[in-house]
């Protein structure tokens, strides 16, 4: 590196202020931390309250995840100082979240498709009087299909 940095050691009792540039991290006013903490507590209570509402299960998930995303954004932005970070940090933060979003969308889509096709097999198994454990229902379904193909002929 070409440039040299002159380091000033601050004496005890000398506090750097918000706008003081030590070349290191950003110093956020304590008041902001306290307010964000209060907001996080309120949002936690809000998410519990929302769970008491008489709405569909899917609506519960959407509301709860929306509140959780706001809370996560507050922690990332303020407590983790992301709002004051460079572009490279933003890229490192958003990349895994993007991949995760893709994966969750993919698995969710997969689950909703399989949901259509499997219950019929389960029904057949149930009718045959085998009963089924919730745990192995999914894994056994393909075999059951072969079985019934046999028995119907």
């Amino acid at each position, binding site marked *: 590196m070409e440039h040299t940095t002159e*380091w000033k050691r601050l004496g005890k009792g000398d506090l750097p202020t918000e706008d003081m540039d030590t070349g290191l991290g950003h110093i956020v006013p304590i008041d902001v931390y306290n307010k964000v903490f209060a907001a996080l507590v309120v949002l936690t209570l809000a998410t519990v309250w929302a*769970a008491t*509402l008489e709405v569909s299960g899917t609506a519960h998930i959407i509301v709860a995840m929306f509140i959780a995303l706001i809370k996560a954004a507050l922690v990332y932005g303020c407590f*983790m100082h992301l709002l004051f970070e460079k572009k490279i940090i933003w890229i490192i933060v958003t*990349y895994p979240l993007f991949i*995760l979003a893709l*994966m969750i969308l993919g698995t969710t889509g997969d689950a909703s498709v399989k949901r259509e096709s499997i219950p019929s097999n389960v029904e057949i198994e149930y009718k045959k009087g085998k009963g089924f454990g919730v745990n192995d229902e999914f894994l056994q379904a393909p075999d059951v299909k072969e079985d019934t193909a046999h028995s119907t002929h």
Partner: protein
Amino acid sequence: MSHHETLPAGHYHHLEPEQAYHSAKLAMWIFLATEIHLFGGAFCAFAFFRWRYFDDFNHYAGQLNWQLGALNTLVLLTSSWAMVRGVDAAQKGLNKLCGRWLIVTIILAFVFFGIKAIEYSTKLSHGIYPSTHIFWGLYYTMTGIHALHIAVGIGLIYWLYLLTKKERFSTVYYTPVEVIGLYWHLVDVIWIFLFPLLYLLGGVGAGAHH
């Protein structure tokens, strides 16, 4: 007052202090990205089985003690706040104050553990094991990996506390506090998602679907 400083204690000798600080922080953010992938795998499994056994999940989620879950959420949020106050104190070179906030963080982490232990032992005594249902398998796995992170965090924060005792941090060197703070906040963020997903989505009280 102002004079040329040699490298502040604790930084790597081959790096400038400022560069060392930013490198360490960059490394922690990259590690946190791998953490997202670790927990992301579990969240994907959860998403799949959540939709697959929608009603079962609502039913079993209702068996969890959401009051204890909510309490633990508040405990962990408070510990995160204590941690950030500790980082703030370290940034200002206030070792003693920083140490106090770190102790508060550690105490709250142990409170979290205590509540979690009550929950686990209650479930186990009712014969609810990871093998009982995929919901419980995911519950024990996800909260277990999360608890492991809390345990590691407690160790790291205690190490920071020992450093504050030695007056190691100053306005130009507080990298470990900030970097471990990042880790601690991520553990908090994970819980922010685990709490509603595991405890609340069956609905509670009047909104319960079971």
